[in-house]
Each structure stands twice: as C-alpha cells, then as structure tokens.
C-alpha cells in the first residue's frame, strides 16, 4: 500500500510517501502500526483530531476499512482557496 504525507505531517515524518506492508483492517489500525515504528511517526500522529485522511484519494474517516485499498494519505486540515 502507498502511504502519502502532506504539509507538516510530511515534514514530521520526513518523507512524502512510502510503501507499507500491512494487514491493518482500518486506517486507525494502520496509524497504530506506524506509531509503533519510530518516534517521528508518534510525533506526526500524536493528535488525530488535527489530522485528516484520504483513502484512494477520497476523504475518509479513521475507521474506514483498508481491504483492497491502494493508497492512503495523511495531512492536516486543508487550506485551499
């Protein structure tokens, strides 16, 4: 699965995207796996209320299932316009 990071999430984790081998059932499960890896992930995911997630390029909730998903992206609230 491709995992993408944008804005300060990208800065804290230190890379814009990576391949992740995971059996995580939901986004929350994936976040927990990432947090367990290294402190920089824990720092990025410290406050989930400050984060948004897209699953296969659609905005989603953290309890969204990951079966069949190819791409998950984490980022702060958007500031377009």
């Amino acid at each position, binding site marked *: 699965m491709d995992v*993408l990071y*944008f*804005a*300060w999430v990208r800065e804290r984790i230190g890379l814009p995207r990576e391949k992740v081998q995971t059996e995580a059932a939901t986004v929350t499960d994936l976040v927990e796996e990432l947090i367990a890896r290294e402190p920089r992930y824990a720092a990025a995911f410290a406050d989930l209320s400050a984060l948004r997630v*897209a699953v296969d*390029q*659609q*905005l989603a909730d953290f309890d969204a299932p990951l079966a069949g998903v190819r791409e998950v*992206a984490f*980022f*702060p*609230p*958007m*500031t*377009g*316009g």
Partner: protein
Amino acid sequence: MRVSVAEAPFDVGREVAEFSAGCSGMGAIVSFTGIVRDLPEAPLEAMEIEHYPGMTESALEDMARRAIERFSLGDALIIHRHGRLAPGETIMMVATAAPHRKDAFDAAEFLMDFLKSRAPFWKREITAGGADWVAAKDEDEDALARW
C-alpha cells in the same frame, strides 16, 4: 465545466471573458478571485501551496459537478495554482454561470466554501522570520454547514 490545477500564472481577465462568452442563455455570471495579500504590517515573502496531485483534480471536478447540478448552472470554472507565489499574485479563481443571479452567487460561494476546507491544498507563509503552515479556520469549517 473546466478545472485547472497548475503552477503557472493565469490571466483573470481573459478567463472571465472566455467563460462569459461561452455561456449562451445565462443571465448571470459570478467570478471570485483569490489573491496573496500584500500587507505592509506583516510583510510576506511568499506563499507556498502544496497539493495532492490526482486527488486535487478529482476533488475539484467533483465540486464543480455538484455545484452545476445543485444550482442548475450553465457552466462552472475552477482554476487553482500551486507552488511558490509572491504577494499580489492570483492564487485561484472560480466562475459560475446561471440563468439568475441568486444561483450564480450561491454556487460561487458553495465552491469557495468547499475549496477552502475540502480540496487538498495546504498553504505555507514564508516571512523573514521563517515558514508557517496556515492553520485551518473554524469559520471555514462552519461555513460548510449551510450547504
């Protein structure tokens, strides 16, 4: 319907003129243009805009389609830049065409409210003191509640 996500500047006047010229049967055209503010009291060196290639385009197309359907528009246009912009530069624009003014205004505000909080763009302000990600505003999230 046209959606454009690009780093290059665009010509607001030409876009409005072309959009207007293409809208037969529509009595009302509204455009919104967003500009990097140039404030003497808080000098900005640049505004950097990051986005999510692929998702951005499909999110904007989805918003434009929803606006066209909901407000019975004849046409809708969204142009949004990314990359590094200087103060005074145009960031983005939307334009809407409808038979009557209320729908054209409502549709433009609808597009702007969704662009602010639901399109995958992130702004960073570069000043002499450093670089800061622009925080999302509660009022922008609240503005979505009316639609």
